[in-house]
């Protein structure tokens, strides 16, 4: 009798009564895999939870499914990097209070011997060379093919040089991995192929000697990768932990949060994996990057159009 009651109450505690009895609330953040896999979010989580009575649950799955989770009421906010989808998310009434929290660049990477002779070219020129080389049977391209933020960016670049996604993917040299960035890089390595990679995953795999692919085209406007946070609209879903979401968003764009983001990985990779976005947008408002961000990731000339700002205009001073 005693043992059963002890084990039952122990199990009840273990299974979730514990944290909430301590006066902490739960914030579910569905996020893109490129932010999570680098370990950045674990670091942010530790620092945030030490300061606030909020337990963050990160569901790392990919930008598109992250938005689906939020639409189905399973997340309180999202961290994604797909501006066109984000606009649809806002306009669909699912999200409010969008803040750009970080940026970095995608990179076109490829085999060391560069069969397509694409090195140093602009992203669009590099891709044209890769298409030519692919059609001549000299190389392959590996696409994510999974509607992740990276994949959506890839489709955008193909569109810029005039290729329709549904047509080019049928060509023989065009492969789709349908999986995460890491495995996609390994496939590209195996096939001596080119691919589009986010910097964080690429640097990690490169440093661990899992791949010998080299960066072919780097920090250009077309490869800009902008990460945003959007809270789920409480009018749409009254059950979301809206206050905690706003608190976390404010933390992410605060000086402390931005410092964690820009310092992350510096000691290991001798360079930043992510750049703080608040600085260029606010202080160096005229810098080239700020201009690019405004061009690529702003809606109607703003980070977040007024009608989606909910009651929190103070986020946008």
């Amino acid at each position: 009798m005693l043992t059963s009651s002890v084990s039952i109450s122990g199990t009840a505690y273990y299974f979730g009564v514990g944290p909430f009895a301590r006066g902490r609330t739960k914030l579910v953040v569905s996020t893109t895999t490129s932010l999570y896999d680098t370990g950045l979010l674990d670091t942010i989580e530790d620092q945030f939870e030490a300061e606030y009575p909020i337990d963050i649950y990160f569901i790392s799955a990919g930008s598109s499914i992250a938005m689906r989770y939020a639409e189905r009421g399973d997340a309180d906010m999202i961290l994604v990097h797909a501006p066109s989808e984000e606009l649809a998310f806002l306009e669909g009434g699912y999200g409010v209070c969008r803040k750009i929290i970080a940026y970095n660049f995608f990179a076109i990477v490829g085999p060391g011997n560069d069969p397509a002779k694409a090195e140093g070219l602009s992203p669009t020129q590099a891709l044209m060379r890769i298409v030519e080389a692919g059609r001549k049977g000299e190389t392959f391209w590996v696409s994510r093919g999974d509607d992740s933020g990276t994949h959506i960016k890839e489709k955008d670049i193909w569109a810029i040089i005039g290729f329709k996604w549904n047509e080019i993917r049928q060509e023989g040299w065009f492969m789709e991995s349908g999986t995460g960035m890491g495995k996609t890089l390994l496939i590209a390595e195996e096939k001596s192929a080119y691919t589009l990679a986010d910097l964080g995953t690429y640097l990690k795999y490169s440093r661990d000697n899992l791949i010998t692919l080299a960066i072919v085209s780097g920090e250009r406007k077309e490869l800009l990768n902008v990460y945003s946070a959007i809270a789920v609209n409480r009018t749409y879903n009254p059950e979301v932990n809206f206050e905690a979401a706003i608190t976390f968003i404010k933390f992410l764009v605060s000086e402390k949060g931005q410092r964690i983001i820009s310092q992350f990985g510096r000691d290991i990779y001798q360079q930043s994996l992510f750049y703080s976005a608040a600085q260029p947008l606010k202080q160096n408002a005229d810098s080239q990057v700020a201009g690019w961000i405004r061009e690529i990731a702003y809606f109607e000339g703003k980070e977040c159009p007024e009608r989606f700002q909910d009651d929190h205009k103070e986020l946008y001073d």
Partner: protein
Amino acid sequence: MSLETEIIEISARAIIVSGSATLLASLWGLPIGITLGLKRFRGRNLVKGFFNALMGMPTVSLGLILYLVFSRVGPLGFLHLLYTPLVMIIGQAVLITPIAVSLTSSTVESIDPDIRDLARTLGASETQASLAVLRESTSGVLLALITSFDRAIAELGVALMLGGNIRGVTRVLTTSIALETTRGELLLGMALTAILLLIVFALNTLVNLIQRRASV
């Protein structure tokens, strides 16, 4: 939390979640399996075939189906069970029920019918005869349970979709292996794999020993 502590935590959670799932599944699985094994009725073969087929359910598909059920906008969303260890237990229990039922029913069925006849000739009632048959099938039922546990602790799809692989809350061995592999931590993935296999081997050996002892 250090790496070692984290590994202990996810291993413990994997054992608790899958162990609880096995106990839960046996609550309804064993009675169904035993009934199927003992009684003869119309449509019995259909039911047996049904459970046999369900053994092949892909975990990722079941994970998706149950996610749609437990998601906030789903029929059981009001329970707010998503991303908790409890929903993982329920999900894995659903996954392994066909195994528990199928293996139990075939082991009960395979008991030599002479046992039942012998019991009856010695004066046993129908129920007592059935109990005699069941006693003979304990080792088979134990095997059904351990196989169910093995399937539960080794599956990824249900744990990932329902649990979310949240650090400190719902992360288990299989979801960690998947995450670390994606992160490029291949050695760590292999270490976690070794731990998972060790747990399964140890448990299977233990049950084997118990069975030997029991039948001596």
